[in-house]
């Protein structure tokens, strides 16, 4: 190889690598990092990206150089030199990638074991997923529709599913874990940044999959303790007027149903603002129609909606008082 061609190869390689590096740095690839685990994962991400940019630059340089330099003239029918191979070169491009991927493997394994290690003072929260809602259960017995977390304390989330496979995903935590019926899976998160982040279902779980969302709220430890106390009080003495609205919200009804009074706009199931009209269509009195539709959803299916989409578990999950409160709430607030 002549010296000139080495120089131009290097030049093209540096330009190609520079463009790739610029793309990597100029675009905000990752969302803010809000957990200790996220910091480690980001390290692996940028470590691997760096290696990828180098490999990409080498390939791009050789290819672009060849395209420009070795283009045959239209009337050139001659053949190239009959080079069949070069053992040294072939060993080199077998060994170097092997070393690189081994380095990636070791780094990843170390980060994985650090992220899986459990601290002593861990807060355990049970997460129950079902089509298409989230419930978070705290050690005190408290349940919540959104995930409240104290800052700077390791939390172990233990997942259970009531029906199909779901997945828990908070991009800012860089955490993703499937929730499988019949298994208890878990992940560890140590929040490091106060704020509100989306909780996303990240495994196709049915027609309401896109709307199976909740929020994770990271708060200062003191604020978290205060929230725990205030909620425990609320559980023991629910005020009658807001109980129905709270049940509606905590069970995630709004993920699939539109109800103006609750500010929800779900389109998977029938519009609850039109309940009186729908009850009339079904030929049933409003209150019993609403009650039956929650307890036994397949009893009457509104035309245009498929069967077996609404979970059939609410009849068991809700107490009689809760059911009554929910029915009252729905019948009084429908269409308002």
């Amino acid at each position, binding site marked *: 190889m002549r010296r000139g061609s080495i120089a131009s190869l290097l030049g093209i390689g540096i330009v190609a690598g520079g463009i790739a590096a610029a793309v990597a740095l100029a675009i905000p690839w990752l969302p803010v990092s809000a957990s200790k685990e996220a910091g480690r994962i980001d390290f692996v991400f940028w470590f691997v990206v760096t290696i990828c940019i180098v490999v990409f630059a080498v390939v791009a340089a050789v290819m672009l150089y*060849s395209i420009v330099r070795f283009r045959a003239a239209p009337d050139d029918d001659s053949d190239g030199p009959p080079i069949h191979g070069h053992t040294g070169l072939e060993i080199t491009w077998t060994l170097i990638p092997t070393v690189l991927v081994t380095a990636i493997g070791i780094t*990843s394994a170390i980060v994985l074991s650090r992220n899986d290690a459990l601290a002593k003072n861990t807060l355990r929260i049970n997460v129950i997923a079902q089509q298409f809602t989230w419930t978070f259960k705290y050690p005190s017995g408290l349940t919540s529709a959104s995930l409240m977390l104290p800052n700077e304390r390791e939390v172990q989330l233990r997942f259970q599913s009531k*029906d199909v496979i779901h997945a828990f995903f908070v991009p800012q935590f860089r955490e993703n874990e499937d929730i499988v019926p019949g298994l208890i899976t878990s992940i560890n998160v140590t929040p490091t940044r106060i704020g509100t982040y989306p909780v996303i279902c990240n495994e196709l779980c*049915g027609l309401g999959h896109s709307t199976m969302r909740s929020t994770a709220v990271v708060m200062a430890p003191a604020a978290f303790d205060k929230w725990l106390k205030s909620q425990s009080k609320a559980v023991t003495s629910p005020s009658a007027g807001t109980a129905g609205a709270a049940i509606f919200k905590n069970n995630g009804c709004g993920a699939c149903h539109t109800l103006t009074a609750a500010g929800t706009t779900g*389109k998977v199931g029938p519009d609850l603002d039109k309940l009186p009209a729908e009850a009339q269509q079904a030929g049933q009195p409003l209150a019993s129609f609403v009650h039956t539709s929650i307890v036994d959803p397949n009893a009457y299916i509104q035309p245009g909606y498929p069967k077996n989409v609404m979970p059939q578990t609410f009849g068991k999950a809700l107490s009689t008082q809760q059911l009554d409160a929910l029915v009252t709430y729905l019948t009084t607030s429908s269409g308002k």
Partner: protein
Amino acid sequence: MTTATLDHHDLTAPTGGGGNTVRRLLLGAGFIRAAWMFCLFGAIGFGLVVVFRWWGGWHPLFDMQPITLVSLLVAGPLGFLAGIGAFDYWTYYALGFPTRAEDHSGHGARSWRDYFRVNTDHKVIGVQYLVTTIFFFIVGGFLAMLVRVQLARPNSHFFDPQTYNGLFSVHASLMIFLFVIPAFAGLANFVVPLMLGAPDMAFPRLNALSFWLLPIAGIMMLSSFIVPGGAFACGWTGYAPLCSSHQPLGAIFFNQGVQWAGASSIMTALNFLVTIITMRAPGLTFWRMPLLVWANFTTSLLVVIATPFIAGSQFFSMFDHVMHTSFFNTSGGGYPLGYQHIFWFYSHPAVYIMMLPGFGIVSEVISVFSRKPIFGYRLMALSLMAIVVLGFSVWAHHMFTSGMSSWLRVPMMVTTLLIAVPTGIKIFSWLATMWEGKLHFNTPMLFALGFISMFVIGGLSGIMLGAVPIDIHVTDTYFVVAHLHYVLFGGSVFTIFAGIYYWYPKMTGRMYDERLGKLHFWLTFVGFNLTFFPMHIIGTEGMPRRVAEYAPKFASMNMFISLASFGLGASVLVFLYNVITSWKNGPIAPSNPWRALTLEWQVTSPPPIFNFDQIPQVVGSPYEYGVPGAQHAVLAPSPTHEVEEVAAP
């Protein structure tokens, strides 16, 4: 035309006298017999189910699920195959009728009608495969554009959730099972026997049957849209228990469609293996085989070993759905992750089933258009074998966050990362083949170079996904969608286009329009990158895949992707216009327009009906470009050919 100009089509039909056209139409193999036999077999299937349910005292007597399964998805298609004539020879033989001496009436194509019947000529079957798969490519692409219509805005309700989930599920199933895998099988069907110096495949009737299973699978998957309850809507991966017990009737159309396509794939692969092992021309040792043959040999090994696993997974899932078994149903003691393990034990090797034939095509194209021998031929062949072996040890990298035993993650990560090594060897060897060559940038070469550049990006994002900590963040996001399209579109589809343009003169006897070919390449290349590159960004930022609605912050990016995808879709029109008009009016192709050394270019375009008048004698490597006086094979000159250009050695 060549020696085999006998025209005995009528011999296959039981002809009576001159006035028996009606009888011949009804009873002779063809679409009319296929139609009534489909109905007859369907009715028998229906009757069987009802009689057994009545006998067993099961209620209700008319249960739609088993009836649809047995009558419409199993018995009916068998009737169609019998009617079209796929079983004729074997049936006559099995029933003890005198078997007719082989008259080659079912062989070769003399008019366009011969492409619409059971034909045992590997060249006709190759074209049948390609035309069918391109049809499903267009349908699948159209479905993808409908998905992009829904995703153009964050909260649009253009489609209801059932239809939307059905759109992306059927899109993926068609592209994988009805386009990429069989399109490669089609190209190989045409080319491999020619490259081997063989007159046909080892089992021509099995070959014909393999083809006719495909339209059944495609129509089955597509027709799930008109089934009551809607199309299967659980993604092409069909995870249990969502797909096995929470889906409408359409789900079993997917389960069974996969069975028909899988059976087709297995039969073809067996056929390739036997053909390659036993029918190589004298002198064509394994180490003299063109890399395309090597690629199809290794692919066929993967297909034969792996495909039965997806068949198993779909049978179990279908049993859970229709017969209420509990393979994956936890309340009956089933294990949902079992589905994923069995499914990915096929579906990861399937990624290489969709990749290795493309490697073979690119090796041919790069060597011919660089006018140089392939660099490191033996290592190229060995790296294919290495991918086959390693490919079976990486399946659980699709399941890093699935809740499987956590210790499994590190070993699966190591094998996944190691598979980058043989893949890297191939990329570097192609680059070295180009080095100091005499590069000609015809359309096949452009697609091959486009493939290398896109596949490098897809491979590098694959290494990122292989590292468990990164995968934990980006799994099931648009980053994965971007990665898989860089591998399967930038990888497989680009190589399919390279192969179609490269062998177009051989298949049709006409040259395609080079300017339109180049235009098609640039539109595809630019459209592809504009569509799929931004998906990396929204993926790492946390936009999940398989959703119909998404956070407003991704809105502008998604609108951009949707617009680009419509442009990418439109680029296919250029391809269609080119191949259709050139087939009719293109300039007549010489037998060896690319001055290639492999055997298929040493016969006329299109090749004579039995390929070679005399079996060629192979004397050297197929890639000796630039070696003075080198020859791959010696062909006996044939007196029956009108014009025979022998490659200038």
